[in-house]
């Protein structure tokens, strides 16, 4: 496992080590998965179109100008894993196809990387941030409380400060 860790550090920009996020610079020359315009998807697995089966419900009929249907649900299946993604989030087939692929990459990421998958990492990071935020808020409250007490003590002349 210890030999795997540096490998993983090289492949992906972010890794958690014992629950703490680590930012490791990627060595040059290693292939990175880039999804245009989406920073969050940088580290998701690449999709091989040959491994995908896509179905678009357009009803029977000739299609094209001869058909005007509003159904634009896209069903994407990843043959090796059997994962199926269905997307009809938008009114554009093209966008639904792209989103189906994004969702597929997310799901494959979980399957392939388990604990190290982006979804799990993000969750851990979010929890950590939440924890830090709560701590900061509590610290602030505590400081305010002490300040108020100090003020109260100063403003009553002659009273004994404790």
């Amino acid at each position, binding site marked *: 496992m210890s030999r795997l860790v540096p490998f993983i550090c090289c492949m992906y920009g972010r890794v958690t080590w014992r629950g703490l996020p680590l930012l490791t610079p990627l060595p040059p020359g290693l292939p990175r998965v880039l999804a245009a315009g989406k920073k969050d998807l940088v580290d998701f697995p690449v999709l091989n179109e040959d491994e995908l089966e896509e179905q*678009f419900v357009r009803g029977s009929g000739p299609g*094209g100008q001869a058909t005007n249907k*509003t159904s*634009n649900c896209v069903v994407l299946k990843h043959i090796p894993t059997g994962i199926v993604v269905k997307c009809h989030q*938008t009114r554009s*087939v*093209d*966008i639904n*196809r792209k989103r189906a692929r994004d969702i597929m990459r997310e799901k494959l990421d979980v399957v392939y990387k388990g604990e190290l998958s982006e979804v799990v990492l993000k969750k851990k990071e979010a929890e950590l941030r939440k924890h830090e935020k709560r701590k900061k808020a509590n610290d602030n409250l505590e400081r305010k409380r002490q300040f108020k007490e100090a003020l109260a003590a100063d403003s009553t002349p002659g009273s004994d400060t404790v």
Partner: protein
Amino acid sequence: MWRTSLRAGCRGCRGFGPKGIWGSHAVRRCSAPAPAPAPAPALPAGRITARQAVDVWKRHFEERGVTEPDNSSHYIIAHLLGAKTIESLEHGKLTEFLSREKTEQMWQLCTRRLSRMPVQYVIEEWDFRDLTLKMRPPVFIPRPETEELVELMLTDLEMEPGAKVGADGQRTCLEVGCGSGAISLSLLNSMPQLKSIAVDQSQDAVDLTRENALRLGLQDRLQVYCIDVLKDAETVVSLCSPVSALVSNPPYLFSEDMTSLEPEIFRFEDHAALDGGKDGLKVIKQILTVAPQILTNHGRVYLEVDPRHPPLIRRWVEANVEEMHYVETRHDINGRPRFCILQKKKSNKDHRLDQD
């Protein structure tokens, strides 16, 4: 042959909207009287939720044989509640009571759908790739296949960074038969360095394309003209300085297939945007004949066609348009041959100098 069930003699001649769908270009002959409009369910006396309204209308569409009963009611309610799809509605919106106004609007819009008006005309908009476009009968509604045409054009155009044409280094593209402007506007939106000229024989289409261009802030890079490429090719040629790409989703249906079209199309969309003549190739042939005079050397033509066309087009071009080379056929998402790509061979002739 593709036949969809169409009630015999069912050729409604109603007008919708201020101008009516027949407007100033009425070409249809009505041989049968309009069918009596199907009665709509009564407006509810009390308040109903969005969900209940959807269920009432879905049932009603089903009873009246209106196609896509669930999609229709879903898109209409979503639009009324400010969303594009029912899935993207805020959680709980569907179980909220509709205001009186919204209920009446729902009834009004769904009643239009009862007459088989396409949803896109009912809500007066639709999406094409990442754009939302205004829709208005009888201007042709963009089909999902055409999104792929834009996609493959963009891939091509982006792979040839060297092809600069204009003095300002910008590339120009010509669209024949722009309809609502979907193709041109989508290209312009995705390629900031592109300029486009769009023509259509329908003034309604020209107006709608201009309107959509304005709404999207793309009017500075798009010129739109009302020209019929069949009647007035010279004007098209003179308007376009050499363009690096010509794109079209021309009318490509076979005339004999027009009568079996579903009512949504037959009754509401401009037949001139659909009927490509006996073999569906009337407009396509004209485009390819004129293309060499408009394109730069190595400029390309991108066409959406009927699945039967690609081999016919290849043969015809080889025999009749010496300057054009058939590059390839691409398939659509349903696996049908749908897109033809052709390229202008390098020529030494400058067509503009021909004084015939």
